[in-house]
């Protein structure tokens, strides 16, 4: 029970990537984060540090976040070498400071990749993901004129698997975690989601081919089955989606 827990505050040293803009060179800078409640989320800890920086007329550390509930995929930094930090299946906005100890040194860097240029400090440009979706991550229906929602039954197992894949939040942790900076987990999640549904069949081949081609064009690396992406994924998207994507792609180019 919270009322029994003795409120425990900790002191930390942060080493944070600072880069004023896309063109500038970045460096790691050191900050003290003092008197941090272990009930804070990681981003609330950064909020507190930033308030202090503003008050001392220094530039606050810029980072992205929005929902702070682990669903929008806006947040994401690398903490001590791990995308979204040490807790499994947890975005950095949901990571709480009780995962750290008094006196810890914490390295905080952006989700790095050639295809994700830094905008400022920890803020990156992930528009490459949007372009992969634009290339084919949809079912071509206009508004209106669709059949009754129950006209095509879908086996629960397939629909559940489609949902597992569709749970991707597009945060980019998979890319940052991958030694090849591959976007395969992200791309394959969308390809799987739609390939598993009857509605997705018509454009199935075209979709796989266009999305994979776009992924390559964006400068993401190849997948060599290392599996770091799956381990870093806050939504535990399975690497089996990548195998499916590879099959889909081969079928598409061979036919």
């Amino acid at each position, binding site marked *: *029970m*919270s*009322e029994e827990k003795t409120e425990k505050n900790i002191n930390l040293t942060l080493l944070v990537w600072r880069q004023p*803009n896309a063109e500038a060179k970045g460096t790691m800078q050191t900050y003290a984060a003092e008197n941090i*409640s272990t009930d*804070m989320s990681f*981003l*609330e*800890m950064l*909020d*507190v540090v930033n308030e202090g920086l*503003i008050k001392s007329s220094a*530039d*606050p550390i*810029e980072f992205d*976040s*929005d*929902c*702070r*509930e682990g*669903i*929008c*995929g*806006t947040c994401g930094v690398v903490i001590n070498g791990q995308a979204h930090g040490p807790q499994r299946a947890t975005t950095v906005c*949901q990571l709480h400071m009780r995962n750290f100890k008094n006196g810890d040194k914490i390295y905080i860097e952006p989700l790095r990749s050639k295809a994700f240029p830094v*905008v*400022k400090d920890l*803020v990156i440009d992930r*528009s490459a993901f*949007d372009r992969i*979706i*634009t290339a*084919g*991550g*949809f*079912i*071509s*229906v*206009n*508004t*209106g004129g*669709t*059949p*009754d*929602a*129950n006209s095509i*039954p*879908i*086996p*629960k197992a397939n*629909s559940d698997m*489609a*949902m597992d894949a*569709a*749970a991707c939040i597009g945060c980019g942790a998979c890319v940052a975690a991958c030694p090849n900076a591959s976007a395969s987990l992200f791309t394959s999640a969308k390809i799987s*989601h*739609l390939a598993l*549904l009857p*509605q*997705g069949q018509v454009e199935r081949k075209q979709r796989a081919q266009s999305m994979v081609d776009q992924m390559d064009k964006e400068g993401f690396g190849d997948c060599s089955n290392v599996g770091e992406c799956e381990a870093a994924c806050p939504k535990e998207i399975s690497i089996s989606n990548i195998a499916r994507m590879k099959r889909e792609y081969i079928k598409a180019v061979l036919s």
Partner: protein
Amino acid sequence: MKLDSREPNYPLSEMWDKHRFDVKLVNPANKRKYTILVVGTGLAGASAGASLAALGYNVKSFCIQDSARRAHSIAAQGGINAAKNYPNDGDNVWRLFYDTIKGGDFRSRESNVYRLAQISTSIIDQCVAQGVPFARDYGGLLDNRSFGGAQVSRTFYARGQTGQQLLLGAYSALMRQVNKGNVDLLTRREMLDLVLIDGKARGITVRNLVSGEIESHAGDAVVLATGGYGNVFFLSTNAVNSNATAAWRCYKKGAYFANPCYTQIHPTCIPVSGDHQSKLTLMSESLRNDGRVWVPKKKGDNRKPNQIPEDERSYYLEEKYPSFGNLVPRDIASRNAKEVCDEGRGVGASGLAVYLDFADAIKRLGETTIKEKYGNLFDMYERIKDENPYKSAMTIYPAVHYTMGGLWVDYNLMSTIPGLHVLGEANFSDHGANRLGASALMQGLADGYFVIPYTLGHYLAQTDLPPVDINQSEFKESEDAVNKRITKLLSINGNKTPREIHRELGKIMWDYVGMARNEEGLKKALEEIPKLREEFWNNLNIPTTVGDLNKNLEFAGRVADFLELGELMARDSLERSESCGGHFREESRTDEGEAKRNDDEFSYVSAWEYTGEESAAKLNKEELVFNNVKLSQRSYK
């Protein structure tokens, strides 16, 4: 100006069909000559952008986030209503209409709500066709659940991630149109002004949040889908970038703001843990289907929940409302939680929490079933609170969640500014004084997919719209005004951060314009808010970076607008001395202590008109006429 709701003169059940026949059409070949500026890419904005582009209009779409897919709609958990009646449990369009009107405590327009109920069924068809993986049963058909006080199962859901899946559906439709070249998508842009030419909405002024540049965009109409203003309370379940700025700037350009005092406080959120808190987390309302809400009977009883015997617990919702029990509507559940905490029976470190207990449900259904139903929510709770809800009762407390008020719109979703259409949570249209669970997603998508594609064409086809371009003086003046304000914000050089002032505003709003309001408190808020605003403009401290990303500058601009909107909310609350839905005036209650409406005096929409910096906003009234439902005092006993 007289408010004309432009409701077509037909019987309710034929109104929308006949109106769709009456509306003027834009010739297919002419559609591409029109440019529509769609601000916002949540459910309302993304569905509108995709649908208008599919019709052939030239669409420019804007959002604050780095990707359209990250709009606040993504966070909706519970589900979306539709009168499909798949479970054969007695639902139909009329029932959904009636429930929504009644749930809104008879403070919404019959015509809009009926249309919403009618359209609801097409939304589900549309989403399934896009590949939205709604939950299904073992026969492969769509599953439904009952939600938030409804006595039929009409809620479609995708695990606890319904908003995410619906938004990804709308986003994919939007990106398909980007692919086809019909949508120009501009992310990391914040609209800071509306540009009027000859009295019509013809453009917007935005700030590029990466470069800091101020840009003008011209078009033939503006569709605003910028979400709600719950963050005026600082702490809410809304995403941290949710804001009122776009709507507020439109208000200041002549769009009336309707019912600003109608806010929804959601009963099941994780309680505040300390001053560092940046937002509050909602625990889906679906939890009330199986969880039982209680507090100790004794004041200040600080034993662990498992150590408090049954007969020393008060299951106050079940006791007071035997027919709805834990499933009473949100406003009632929230108010009752506040009452028991005010009596000193609240639990947790702050005494501002009640228990939501699954022990009985786990006994009855087994832990596996509970895990299947609510596993992700329980995990989330454990991550935040570091307590295992399978073992010990959760603690919950109400939090600001949704705003029913918003820019006033007519039946065609057009504001009082010709050409400015407002969709989704940003308008006031369908939920009256209280929104039912799972109805915001329905409304956002109804507005975007199925209303605006017709009504916008109607406007364009009958309006003289000479070409405009961004070199016209109106655009330059708007850019100058925006630049001036930014310069002012950057030059204050005071001591308080925008967050500090925002937190103070939130406290005033929560204390005096929150779950229970009274004349004295509201008057106090009306004194305090202007003082705080004064302090803001004299004592703000933000980083002075101009040329690139500066989030504190963005936030400061939003807080400045909240400081004005908060005051209007307090005024609206003061003026409406009745209780209705989420607006509870302590002076107006029944003998049993429930909210008491006053239909003779307050059966109207309050539409506030901006009259200038120095003068008070003017109240205009749209009388609400009920020809189809009989007004009754809500009772969930």
